[in-house]
């Protein structure tokens, strides 16, 4: 038994070690994630709470609260923008330097509760103002992110792996012997996955939305357009990855390399407000970030087409670029 086990073990090791692409990604992927997380979350002890200050932190310099350790003070340009961040729970408080100092707090936020206690200890005269409009719960803020991430995984892995399986099994080679063109084949894959993902997302949106009592502030047709463009961008990305490759492990590595940064940086789980500018530039380049910006703007604030047009244009461009690359580099056989 041991001899047989060793024979299979040895052969599998050789297979793995000789598949250089997979080996590389087995090393590169975790290394990239660790380095990425290190860059984002590393460095000196980080502030625990973020407080927005109208007019910038300098306007608060004479207040004792400004010297509280582990609280970061962010400049906020307008009350409207600040209140939105409070409703989102992206900042614990919004301050309008006085005297007397006024502040807005999200009464549903645990962070808001703690930071209000710290503020009152430092400045008893601070005046609390109500946050007008609908309070946005964390689950409301998270809901578009979960839907978008599901779309991303389904599109990238669903399309990438299927094309890879077709190529590995020789089915693509058989199709190549017919009048079918690469563009027709890829278009069929795109449309099939698009239809499936829109149907699934609609069901999830309806069922989960009802379960969490989600109130959609926007236009559903616009939301469908965002979902369609977002899905198309992800599918195009998946097709580009699978356009030429024949190694399952390499494709898996590449898809993970694409999905991990999007999960971490798109703002699906947490806001990148306050992150270094270069990191936000990278985040903004990710299709999931654009999809989420547009989806949240419509779902949470009822934004119209004009407000999200840049996001939609970006997604459309990404789709065309990656579909072009995918079709041009497409390989029918191993």
């Amino acid at each position: 038994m041991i001899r047989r086990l060793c024979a299979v073990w040895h052969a599998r090791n050789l297979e793995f070690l000789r598949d250089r692409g997979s080996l590389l990604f087995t090393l590169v992927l975790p290394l990239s994630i660790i380095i990425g997380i290190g860059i984002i979350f590393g460095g000196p002890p980080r502030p625990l709470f973020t407080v927005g200050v109208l007019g910038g932190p300098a306007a608060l310099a004479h207040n004792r609260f400004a010297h509280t350790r582990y609280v970061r003070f962010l400049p906020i340009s307008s009350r409207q923008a600040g209140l939105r961040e409070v409703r989102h729970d992206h900042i614990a408080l919004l301050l309008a330097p006085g005297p007397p100092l006024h502040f807005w707090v999200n009464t549903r936020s645990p962070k808001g509760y703690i930071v209000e206690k710290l503020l009152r200890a430092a400045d008893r005269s601070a005046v609390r103002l109500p946050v007008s409009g609908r309070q946005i719960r964390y689950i409301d803020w998270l809901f578009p992110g979960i839907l978008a991430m599901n779309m991303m995984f389904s599109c990238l892995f669903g399309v990438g792996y299927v094309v890879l399986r077709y190529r590995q099994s020789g089915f693509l080679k058989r199709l190549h012997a017919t009048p079918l063109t690469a563009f027709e084949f890829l278009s069929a894959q795109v449309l099939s996955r698009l239809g499936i993902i829109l149907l699934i997302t609609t069901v999830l949106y309806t069922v989960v939305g009802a379960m969490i009592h989600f109130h959609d502030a926007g236009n559903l047709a616009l939301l469908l357009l965002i979902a369609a463009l977002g899905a198309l961008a992800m599918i195009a990305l998946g097709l580009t990855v699978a356009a030429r490759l024949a190694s399952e492990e390499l494709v898996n590595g590449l898809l993970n390399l694409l999905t991990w940064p999007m999960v971490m940086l798109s703002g699906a789980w947490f806001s990148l407000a306050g992150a270094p500018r270069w990191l936000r530039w990278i985040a903004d380049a990710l299709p999931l970030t654009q999809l989420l910006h547009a989806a949240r703007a419509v779902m949470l604030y009822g934004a119209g087409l004009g407000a999200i047009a840049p996001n939609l244009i970006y997604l459309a461009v990404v789709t065309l670029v990656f579909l072009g690359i995918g079709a041009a580099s497409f390989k029918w056989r191993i």
Partner: protein
Amino acid sequence: MSVPILEVRDLVKRYAAITAVNGLSFRVPPGMCFGLLGPNGAGKTTTMEIMEGILAPSSGTVSYRGEPLGERFREEAGILFQATALQHFLTVRQSLALFRGLYTRGRDIDELLHLCSLEALAERDNRKLSGGQRQRLLLAIALVNDPAVLFLDEPTTGLDPQARRNFWELVGAVKEQGKTIILTTHYMDEAEILCDEIAIVDHGRIVAEGEPRRLLREHFAAVLLELPRAAFPPAARTLPLQFLETQERVEITTDDLDATLRTLIGAGVPLASLRMRPPNLEDLFLELTGHELRA
């Protein structure tokens, strides 16, 4: 020769240091079953794939009805690869419908099911077919566009004898419809039954080409004598005979049977297990390539 439906000219395919196809040229007239025979690695499948338009040659040309392979060829060619995977979770009928949808014209699916004896299997998952049933489905797929030229790359490899004969009957029926067939095979009996003309390929070159009977006449003047190898003593190897040794037997080619028998008796070779038969394509293949046939 009539105007060829397919013409291969000076075909060369190189892979790094290996030349898989080395200057192949031949013409296939319409309605003919043309066999490409050769040992493993001879370049048959590479030649087929270039002819099918799915592999680019390093040099040389393939023309269909006098034109380079193009859209018309793809519409009018039917192909059965050595190993073809199908899309999962589709029935036999759905698999046919998928491929039927890829061509502008073609045959009715029920007609194909009948032609390839698949009616009873029409609603079965294509993953649940036996080897023979699967080959019949792949043949039906190759015929789905009512092709003018049909490529069959080792179509019966791995099938049991009954399934092979059944498949030959189907190919025979297709041939009767006037289709041109290009066949590669390891089985010489298959080539003898199906092919009107053959080309024997070795090391990427054609070593013989023509009608099987004519080739046999040209290369074998008379009969073949077969002896088990054990019955052929080492001393007999020095006799003035034309013979070929395989792992199990010794084959002696002669056009003077009496003289050969006298020589063997004189050398003390036991003739109890001697067999005499006319030469066949396998003998020709071994004569020309010196290779054992390997499935």
